């Protein structure tokens, strides 16, 4: 896909934004771009971009994240470095926005700057198997709430439909109609569909713009 200077990933919490954002940042870096990733989640106490620090370090991608992420401090904080996202236009920015309208609220701080620059993609990450977004209608309801909270309209869709470790090729294929329906009703293009790397070979000829992704592994809880 064509790359805008700022790519924002937003959507229902738990739809897979963090993994998608991590992989997208790595993809850009591997293309030779100068990219930083921003964790703008002000809601989740754990399970966040910081958990993918090893993956990011391997690729030398700086992570801008609240000092309090994954700590015991329960405050909705953003790192002051977040302003680099709009001030340093020499770098590409990948932004992991918090889930739902609550999580996206903080992004509103950058609404004016992002619109003035006019070089961003705001991507709606969708998952047909995620509770509360199983239909196009429910997905669009949450999409509208997010847009109202942060003031930034979506420009495209990422189909990340998955059932965690129980995802199969069938799971992914069965999500295509849903994604198309969201696209049809919103008028937004499906920028790409994500699938865990192990399933990529079996699906690459069956789905347009299919992208293999690596998923943060929480082995300890299996």
């Amino acid at each position, binding site marked *: 896909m064509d790359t805008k200077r700022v790519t924002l990933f937003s959507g229902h919490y738990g739809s897979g934004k963090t993994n998608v954002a991590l992989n997208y940042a790595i993809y850009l870096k591997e293309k030779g771009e100068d990219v930083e990733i921003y964790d703008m989640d002000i809601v989740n*106490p*754990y*399970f966040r971009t910081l958990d993918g620090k090893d993956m990011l370090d391997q690729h030398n991608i700086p992570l801008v994240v609240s000092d309090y992420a994954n700590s015991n401090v329960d405050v909705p904080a953003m790192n002051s470095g977040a302003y680099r996202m709009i001030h340093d236009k020499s770098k590409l920015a990948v932004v992991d926005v918090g889930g739902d309208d609550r999580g996206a609220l903080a992004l509103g701080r950058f609404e004016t700057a992002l619109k003035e620059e006019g070089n961003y993609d705001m991507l709606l990450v969708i998952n047909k198997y995620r509770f509360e977004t199983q239909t196009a209608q429910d997905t669009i309801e949450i999409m509208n709430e997010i847009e109202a909270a942060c003031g930034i309209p979506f420009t495209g869709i990422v189909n990340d439909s998955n059932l965690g470790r129980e995802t199969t090729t069938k799971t992914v294929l069965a999500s295509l109609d849903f994604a198309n329906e969201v696209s049809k009703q919103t008028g937004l293009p499906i920028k790409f569909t994500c699938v865990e790397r192990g399933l990529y070979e079996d699906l690459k000829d069956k789905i347009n713009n299919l992208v293999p992704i690596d998923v943060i592994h929480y*082995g300890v*809880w299996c």
Partner: protein
Amino acid sequence: MAEKILMKGNEALAEAAITAGCRHYFGYPITPQTEVAAYMAKRMPKIGGTFLQAESEVAAINMVLGAAAAGVRSMTSSSSPGISLKSEGISYMAGCEVPALIVNVERGGPGLGGIQPSQSDYFQATKGGGHGDYHLIVLAPASVQEMYSLTIKGFELADNYRVPTMILTDGTIGQMMEPVSLDAVEVKQFDKPWAACGQRGRDHRNIINSLSLSPEELEQWNLNRYARYKVIEEKEQMYEEYMMDDAEICIVAFGIAARVSKNAIVEARKKGLKVGMIRPITLWPFPTKALKAAAEKCKAFISVELSMGQMIDDVKLAIDCKKPVYLCNRTGGVIVSSNEVVAKIEEVSKM
């Protein structure tokens, strides 16, 4: 089986409560259980239920008491410090013998502690927490699927025995997402002729309180309640056995610690160590029968806990200290690792 969907533990719990017929939720936000309240706030108005964010935890638990006394299924949820605040109300509910569901998505303590997952409210949940002679029925889910099934079970047990029931889980299980099947379940309902919901043709008014004017009367209330507890201890012990057939070492762990322990057991078995697990699903009543039986054939026990060692006391009591019981633990919001459990198994196997 219904098509699976991805849910957070807290969401599965909230959805289960609605499936169980709970239409009255009273709460106050606290990490890491806030999704329960957020979900109820969104959902309850759509189904004719009540979501109320109280001015404090103390207020919320007393609203639960009031709703439960009127005979409807009601609940509250909180996390460790919030449960301490609710403890007075919980004691009153035990004294009033009103059934309701109390959810504790534990975080580290004592005091304000932290927001990372913990199991250090075991004593508080199983031994009282509030004042007086009472028990709660305490259920400990170890998966998002069990957050669903045990929440429904919790409402049923509470109503059946007129005992407030607690779901004791931790931040990890509350926050993590897993595929869940929301199978159509038949939820048991119970007559509540004791409920204070109007006279309804009866020849008397039902009055619910926890005040007894004479010591003898209070003693009799307590004796009656403990007779019921005895039935619960006899009939309601729940546990899961894992690789216990030939086990020489028995791990005892619940919730997230049991998940880690399962990984550790698989690893230890690759090294030829005969280890299995008894996972208490009811923490009260504690699964003493299963542990007693295990004590006959196992040479040692390891209690794996995210606390300084609380359940270990119940393990020792259950087996009358017939075999040594060792502790493998992390606390303060740190999750014990599979490697740490394997190391403990190896250490104990050499003793």
